[in-house]
């Protein structure tokens, strides 16, 4: 019995001990919970709050920002209510700027690759070392007389940074400042028909009928917020009936979904439809006769100085583009065509806009001409509700450069993206061809590549070849903030600030015709060891000898900005951003020719400019007829004499007949028709019998063609209408899918002559039976934790094709086949 008692006692004791220990722990924990741990409470937020104006650089829309800064961190981005582009509004991508600035995947210091080409190892280096290294390497190139072998791929060639790069290339001696942003095909029409090289605006706010040929008005075209604002205004704010928006497109995009009518059309036949509409306008005499007579050339048949008779636009259209013919080409029913044409002619002001979908084809230039011809037919050029030819921002001109002999010699070499170095528009090579040229070393070896806001390895067809090309170049320098696909091939990474950390200019894209410039100051201190690329250019120039240094008489980018905006101060029109009621009065005065200076000194102007976030030209002067037609005939040219002259000049130089050149440029028309807006059949990669579907890689507002992919918020909302998040999808017509035995959400293979991807199919009644759609911007293999490995990149399917006349990449010219995976 005693034994048992003892046993119990011991057990009891152990139990008590255990109890006591746990009790002690528990009570200690509880007390700790109840009262603050003093040491931990040194974190003491002050909540000091400021609102700082800036400019959004998530896309090229140029919206003004107000950043809410609390205790040195940006905690919210809102629109700048004074900025005329967005008036306090902001798109989803703009809001997600927070996730860009505070992204954990940012490159935090300058880095140098170790282990030579092909290695994926970088080491952090200091800025001085980095810039010295770069200056040394670039210096060597100049010493060897090869400054032209540097190419600068510039994805944001507008504004002062573009100008700074251009100036650097000039002073350094390379002709190769190459834009990599997506070209706007309508520019070709502006060049050939009006002799102007700029982008035109569209006075949508005053338009009553908007005929959009695949223009993604609400999906990121030019300035998304301004477009959305305009849309809202046209729908329910403007007095009178709602404006009509007709979307002619191969996919029911969000723009098409918000339009009054969606007209599905066979890819690449937009030009034919425009000509079909022209037929109705001409046949029913619904065109603007006064305008045609006074301001156009080549509408009727004409005889040139040598007495040769030429065919006019009218006869060409009446002969060739009868609605039934056009319907057969485009797949648009005849009655729809006639109805649209009549509405377009009678609902004035009516305006026709061409988008990338219509112009990035092998026949893109002619599509653009045909579409733009419609604007001339209704006489709606530089009028309220029409096409606007706007003013440039009056930046102060920079002092001329005294470049040295090496630079001058280098600049004389042909630009790498020009097939034959003739007129800038003719036969410009798309990016993928550039890669081939680097690989082939034609016309010369490339020794150095700068990547600024540019990611060609991701956004180029046959990107593996471009990657190979970068591998081959001895020096690749990237200014990226993220380790993207192209930066992965960089030997030197000089990370730029994100846009909230730096001084910058934000020119708004032309839309309202009014020049608008956003000016941004750094909102927060740079988070990491990054540096403004503008400052890097200046520092680089300073270290590369007298002549280069002399070309850049500024210490940093802020000075460049201050120097340049002096032009606005001195412009004698426009105004620092102001409340709309305040602006309205000044605008009325200025419209009547009055100029009241707002500030007594540039310093006062600058201070207010920075505080309010920018400067704007206030109003557009309509009907500058002498100004908007810079063609040989000083009129709007249906028959483009410039096109004719340049093609003939080239043929002559080569000593070949014109027809042979046309043959080479894949132009089927002959004679006068070549120089008139006409329909050229689009060419597609892949045979129809083997690859039955058109591939339509479409833009998504929130991805901005790829840069939005590492922002989790954007990934969460990417495929709204098909309920897809964090992934790509293939939109396929339900009936087509049924025939192929594909159900919603099935995995499918999409195969083109160039590649093959596995993707989830989504049945979408808004896709045409013969077209499948894949969003652009996903399928990264690098660029951050959230971007990498999600979805597919349709560029893997797209072939390297181009419109050889206009130098437009033919992004929509690939056929694919679909099979169940």
């Amino acid at each position: 019995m005693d034994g048992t008692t003892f046993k119990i006692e011991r057990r009891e004791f152990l139990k008590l001990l255990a109890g006591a220990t746990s009790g002690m722990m528990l009570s200690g924990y509880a007390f700790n919970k109840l009262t603050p741990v003093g040491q931990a409470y040194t974190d003491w937020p002050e909540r000091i709050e400021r609102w700082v104006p800036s400019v959004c650089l998530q896309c090229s829309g140029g919206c003004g920002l107000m950043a809410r800064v609390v205790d040195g961190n940006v905690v919210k981005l809102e629109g700048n209510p004074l900025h005329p582009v967005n008036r306090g509004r902001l798109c989803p991508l703009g809001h997600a700027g927070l996730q860009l600035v505070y992204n954990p995947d940012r490159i935090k210091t300058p880095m140098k690759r170790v282990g030579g080409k092909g290695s994926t190892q970088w080491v952090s280096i200091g800025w001085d070392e980095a810039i010295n290294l770069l200056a040394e390497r670039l210096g060597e190139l100049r010493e060897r007389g090869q400054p032209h072998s540097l190419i600068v791929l510039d994805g944001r060639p507008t504004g002062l940074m573009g100008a700074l790069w251009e100036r650097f290339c000039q002073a350094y001696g390379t002709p190769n400042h190459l834009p990599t942003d997506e070209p706007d095909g309508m520019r070709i029409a502006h060049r050939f028909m009006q002799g102007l090289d700029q982008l035109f605006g569209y006075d949508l706010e005053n338009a009553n009928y908007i005929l959009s040929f695949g223009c993604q008005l609400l999906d990121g075209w030019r300035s998304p917020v301004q477009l959305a604002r305009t849309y809202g205004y046209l729908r329910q704010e403007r007095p009178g009936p709602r404006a009509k928006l007709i979307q002619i497109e191969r996919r029911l995009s969000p723009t098409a979904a918000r339009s009054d009518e969606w007209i599905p059309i066979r890819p690449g036949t937009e030009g034919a439809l425009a000509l079909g509409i022209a037929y109705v306008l001409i046949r029913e005499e619904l065109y603007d006769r006064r305008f045609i007579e006074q301001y156009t050339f080549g509408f009727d048949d004409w005889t040139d100085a040598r007495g040769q008779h030429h065919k006019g636009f009218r006869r060409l259209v009446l002969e060739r583009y009868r609605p039934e013919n056009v319907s057969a080409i485009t797949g648009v029913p005849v009655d729809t065509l006639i109805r649209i044409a009549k509405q377009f002619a009678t609902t004035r002001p009516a305006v026709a806009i061409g988008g990338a979908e219509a112009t990035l084809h092998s026949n893109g230039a002619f599509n653009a001409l045909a579409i733009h011809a419609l604007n001339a037919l209704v006489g709606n050029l530089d009028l309220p509700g029409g096409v606007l030819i706007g003013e440039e921002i009056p930046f102060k001109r920079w002092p001329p450069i005294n470049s040295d002999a090496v630079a001058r010699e280098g600049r004389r070499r042909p630009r790498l993206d020009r097939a034959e170095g003739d007129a800038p528009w003719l036969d410009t090579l798309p990016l993928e061809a550039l890669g081939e040229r680097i690989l082939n070393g034609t016309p010369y070896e490339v020794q150095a590549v700068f990547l600024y806001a540019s990611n060609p390895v991701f956004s180029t067809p046959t990107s593996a070849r471009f990657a190979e090309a970068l591998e081959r170049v001895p020096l690749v320098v990237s200014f990226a903030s993220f380790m993207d696909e192209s930066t992965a091939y960089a030997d030197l990474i000089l990370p730029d600030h994100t846009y909230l950390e730096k001084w910058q200019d934000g020119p708004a894209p032309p839309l309202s015709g009014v020049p608008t410039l956003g000016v941004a100051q750094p909102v927060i201190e740079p988070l990491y060891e990054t540096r403004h690329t503008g400052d890097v250019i200046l520092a680089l120039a300073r270290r590369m000898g007298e002549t280069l240094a002399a070309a850049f008489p500024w210490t940093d980018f802020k000075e460049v900005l201050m120097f340049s905006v002096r032009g606005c101060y001195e412009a004698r029109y426009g105004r620092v951003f102001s409340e709309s009621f305040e602006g309205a009065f000044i605008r009325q005065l200025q419209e009547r020719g009055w100029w009241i200076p707002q500030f007594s000194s540039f310093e006062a102007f600058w201070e207010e400019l920075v505080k309010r976030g920018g400067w704007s030209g206030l109003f557009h002067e309509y009907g500058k007829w002498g100004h908007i037609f810079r063609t040989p005939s000083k009129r709007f040219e249906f028959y483009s004499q410039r096109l004719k002259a340049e093609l003939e000049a080239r043929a002559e130089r080569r000593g070949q007949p014109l027809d042979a050149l046309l043959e080479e440029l894949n132009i089927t028309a002959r004679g006068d028709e070549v120089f008139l807006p006409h329909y050229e059949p689009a060419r597609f990669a892949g045979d129809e019998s083997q690859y039955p579907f058109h591939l339509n890689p479409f833009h998504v507002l929130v991805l901005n063609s790829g840069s939005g992919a590492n922002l989790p918020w954007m990934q969460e909302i990417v495929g709204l209408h098909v309920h897809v998040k964090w992934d790509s999808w293939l939109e396929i017509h339900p009936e087509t899918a049924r025939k192929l035995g594909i159900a919603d959400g099935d995995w499918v293979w999409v195969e083109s002559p160039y590649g093959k991807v596995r993707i989830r199919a989504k049945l979408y009644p808004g896709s045409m039976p013969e077209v499948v759609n894949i969003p652009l911007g996903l399928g990264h293999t690098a660029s951050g934790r959230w971007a990498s490995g999600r979805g597919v990149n349709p560029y893997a399917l797209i072939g390297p094709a181009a419109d050889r006349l206009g130098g437009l990449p033919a992004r929509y010219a690939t056929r694919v086949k679909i099979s169940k995976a």
Partner: protein
Amino acid sequence: MPRWAMVIDLDKCTGCQACVIACKAENNIPFVSPEQAAMGRTISWMEVIPIVEGEYPRVRVRYIPRPCMQCDNPPCTKVCPVYATFKNEEGLVAQIYPRCIGCRYCTAACPYTVKYFNWYAPQWPEEMRACLNPDVSTRPKGVVEKCTFCHHRLQKAKEKARAEQRELREGDYVPACVQSCPAGAMFFGDLDDPMSTVAQLARSARAFRLLDDLGTEPKVIYLIEGEWYGPRKRA
């Protein structure tokens, strides 16, 4: 007492989802991993509902931005066992995270499915914590959350108005989504003030409310798409 209400003009809405992201930024809404998102655990107080109607080629897509309806007769508050969700005197349906026991009865009872649950404790990469809004708490795991009409903005607006010794004016208090709407499709104000924009628009013949026949009396009022010749408002 004002009765806060929102009007959304579907004819102006472009479906861009700026409201969705503005809300996420304003209210410290965590994003979830792709795997969680695939399970349906994305939190989005403001959500755009896409409705694809019709057959090719006459297909129509409607976009309906959907915040919390802030019902005058909310089915969710009735079922909350602990007063973690209730309607306050200004008509806002509040959600009090420190009180919530996470039974998800309110989420199941809400006919609009506007309530979200914190399946895990919300997480951000350390860098991204810096850009959280200090005016709004981050939620713990296991509680229900939803759109609050950005009521923290109301508190700030009220404090500011009082400090300036004036009444709250129209436009002083606007939720983040309304503030950001690029198309100007959203309006906000006091429904009890007959002169306010929302009250005027609410009387429009285009006005309707989601699932109106349920009698929940939502204070989010929609204006239907289409031609209309009545009075117009600029947001």
